[in-house]
């Protein structure tokens, strides 16, 4: 008997504990309560290296919107404050899924913004689909995510794979002597692989000779062999498609072993890389979605936001994608004039929205397919925008003297 009672007691305790962390909450879509966005950020765990400042930035974002009165809802005839619920998904996909379920059913948020990364970008959208909650994801760049036929999902990824290096290749085509050969070095990651996959084909069609295509794992520390292959093949362009930290030893070892090329391009360049490799980055070209000083819609807002949140755009370039996602969701709600999820969905569908990076235009899959990036080059230890010429803050130095 004792046993049975004990078991029941245990079960009850467990259920009670479960309900303790699942409190009931709010209603959806009234004109009295704040407009609520829900998001998860990988503040800890393996992806946190890219995202650790976003929690603060998100809080500041809501504050700034509310300082302007909030989100303007025509349907209510007034501005409603914006509230953003933030959880840490600890970089674990199943945790992210359960937190989005929580936001859908317990916190009853109106809309989802985020999450990031392919590992979350695949499992989370079906949750939004199930609960019919529109979501604008941020740094979810793997193209297959947008080809699954989901109807409540948009994304503002940086890099947008087909467009990312367009301006860079455009620039290279205008240089003399014209580079003829290219060597791709790619981190084993869906996004970076997609970049290489697209551009290695494209480069061939642009008349480049692709001398090699090397994949490396994030675990790799000793790049000697890879660099020696570069030295043997002597490409004009070395195109590195990698996130910033895995390629730190690569750049260092390329320098150490006196690799030569006309241009070394690091497609996803950031200040973090710069901080770690220092002078070794001199002359390397890269791309960035936006940089303070580049004027456009919301550029003042964004400059103020990153200043308040203490985010250095060059160090955290992926922040732009997050900010764009928030901005687009605010615009969509204002366009719909109500917090009705279906109306907001209609506003988002194939919509075009403002962002500091220019117009973001969604295709029918929810993919922001027209965004490019500005080409920059590290000159005298500073990032200088060198292409397109109309917004360039400096002149492209070619062939890169430090790689001779």
């Amino acid at each position: 008997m004792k046993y049975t009672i004990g078991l029941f007691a245990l079960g009850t305790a467990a259920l009670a504990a479960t309900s303790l962390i699942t409190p009931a909450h709010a209603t959806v879509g009234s004109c009295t309560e704040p407009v609520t966005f829900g998001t998860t950020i990988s503040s800890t765990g393996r992806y946190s290296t890219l995202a650790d400042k976003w929690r603060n930035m998100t809080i500041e974002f809501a504050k700034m919107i509310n300082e302007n009165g909030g989100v303007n809802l025509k349907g209510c005839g007034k501005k409603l404050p914006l509230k953003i619920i933030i959880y840490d998904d600890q970089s674990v996909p199943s945790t992210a899924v359960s937190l989005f379920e929580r936001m859908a059913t317990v916190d009853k948020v109106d809309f989802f913004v985020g999450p990031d990364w392919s590992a979350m970008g695949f499992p989370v959208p079906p949750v939004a689909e199930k609960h019919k909650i529109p979501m604008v994801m941020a740094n979810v760049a793997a193209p297959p995510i947008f080809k699954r036929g989901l109807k409540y999902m948009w994304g503002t990824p940086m890099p947008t794979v087909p467009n990312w290096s367009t301006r860079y290749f455009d620039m290279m085509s205008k240089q003399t002597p014209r580079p003829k050969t290219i060597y791709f070095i790619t981190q084993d990651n869906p996004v970076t692989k997609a970049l290489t996959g697209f551009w290695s084909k494209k480069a061939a069609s642009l008349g480049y000779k692709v001398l090699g295509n090397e994949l490396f794992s994030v675990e790799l520390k000793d790049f000697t062999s890879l660099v020696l292959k570069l030295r043997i093949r002597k490409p004009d362009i070395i195109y590195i498609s990698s996130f910033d930290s895995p390629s730190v030893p690569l750049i260092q070892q390329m320098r150490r072993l006196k690799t030569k090329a006309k241009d070394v391009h690091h497609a996803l360049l950031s200040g973090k890389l710069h901080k770690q490799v220092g002078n070794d980055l001199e002359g390397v070209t890269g791309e960035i979605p936006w940089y303070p000083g580049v004027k456009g819609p919301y550029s003042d807002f964004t400059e103020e936001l990153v200043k308040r949140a203490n985010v250095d755009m060059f160090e955290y370039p992926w922040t732009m994608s997050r900010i764009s996602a928030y901005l687009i969701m605010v615009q969509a709600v204002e366009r719909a004039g109500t917090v009705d999820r279906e109306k907001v969905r209609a506003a988002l569908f194939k919509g075009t929205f403002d962002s500091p990076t220019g117009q973001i235009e969604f295709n029918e899959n929810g993919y922001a397919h027209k965004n490019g990036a500005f080409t920059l080059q590290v000159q005298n230890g500073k990032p200088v925008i060198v292409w397109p010429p109309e917004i360039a803050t400096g002149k492209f130095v070619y062939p890169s003297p430090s790689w001779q």
Partner: protein
Amino acid sequence: MSNYRYWLGGAFVLAALALIPTSGSAYTTTLLFTMLISYTLAQSWDWVGGEAGYINLAHFAFYGIGAYAFCLSLLNGIPIALCFVIAVVVTSIVALVVSFPLFRLRGDYFAFATLAILPLTELLAFNFDFTGGADGVVLPPKYVLFEAYYLAIGLVGLTAIATVWLIRTRFGYALKAIRNDEEAAEICGIRIFPAKSGVLIMSAGFASLAGALQGWQLSYIDPTTVFGLDVALIPIAMALLGGSGLLWGAVVGVIILSLFNQLLIVSLPILQTAIFGLLLLLIGRYMPGGLLRSGIIRNNRWIGFLGREHDRFVKATAGVTMTDGLPLPKQSDMKGQPVLECRNLTMAFGGNVAVDNISLTINAGEIVGLVGTNGSGKTTLFNCISKVFEQKSGDIIFLGQNLAGARRDDASKLGIGRTFQIPQPFSDLTVAENIAMPLMYRGAVSASLPDALGLATQFAEYVGLTDHLSARADSLNLQQKKALELARALACRPRLLLVDEVASGLTPMEVRNFVNHIRELRDNYGITIIWVEHIFSALAQVVDRVIVMEQGSIIADGPLDDVVRDERVLRTYLGSAAPEAV
């Protein structure tokens, strides 16, 4: 009686779980789903870790392999039920293959080596084409939480049943024996590699189903998600935190850690992981046996049952026929014929020759005393005969069969039983379980667990351990342990019994008792006996002849009275001060 309560309790829990999706929020369902998956992982890990005693840090790799096998099959249009089967089959094959190198290792080395498996699987998933590399495997975006949830309930039911089954069956006991002492397990007739490999495969199979369900629910897997080192230790920590090797250990560990973790995530913006780690650390420091083994739980009226050890779940069958004396077969009379022959037997460790070119013959129905100073090679000889060591050269012929290359369990099954000089009981099992072990494994007449426990009482009575049947072996004193050794050796139903120093330390009365046993075993059951003993008075009462060893060689062989008058024996064994005479 208690049985029906288990089923009732289990059914109640599963039914309650099944009702959750209809009443609770989808969030509760995902949370519980995660817990069900975690339980399956933690519990199936514990079959290898808690039962067989091997710390397998590669468990998460099986989870990932299952997820991959399932998702890839599903993507190729295979019916979903078949996909689960494929996941189990593929993972089992992998587990079988890796068990060959891994089980060549013991203890912590096994743990070290398994730790390397997980990064390897992650890299393979990254680098192979068919796994999709870093892009992972993308399933159609169906919302299958509820289907996956109900399947997970089923999986948990199966896991729980398998756990109870392990506790109550011969297989489970083979694992417990292996955990305690592999050498002694083999002596009891257990083939250890198939048992270890078997439990690894079983554990891998359940982990693979957990992975398959999780992959299905997430609709996407990539190498870092299912093979990531960062989360691999958590299911293991859950099992250990609850109480490894206990029926309820994994359950409690999973409930507490999952809920605690979720509570931290939703209520704290920072340092959730650190606080989670702090909980693990404190439990490890203050309740190192796991939460359920702590006094706070065990001494509690209401939840004390959670901390029960496995032996409290098994009862002996009452209906075993009580025979007069021991349940041993009367052996065919072959008196005078050789049972054991050693020919030119040599055993050496490095340069140290422990048994040097020995030839001897033991005839059926003999009781032979084997004496010699410590280090003269008696125990090594025993170890060669019982195949604890493979001899360096020479032959051992037992009942006409050459034992060259035989395993320890072969020797046991052929009818060689033995005791160890330093008793090697299965320490954390009870006396009854210790004796039941060979009864379950020895030969064609192997008994079921309850029957074996029933029979064990008779052996225990024979050696005077009736009062200690349910005491743990490590709580016995030295003499009781030696008695237990004898009972366990007898339970092997030997035709040749090797007794290694049982009488030392006994009172004269006890020695006489023991001698009577030895005589009785020969007279009533036809068991041939070789007895290593220092106490001549004990030997004198029963042995037919004495073999004296010194420096690995036999220096005398004959009736006791002759031997003790042998000058050479007196000099070497008794160390007589008499002048050297050659």
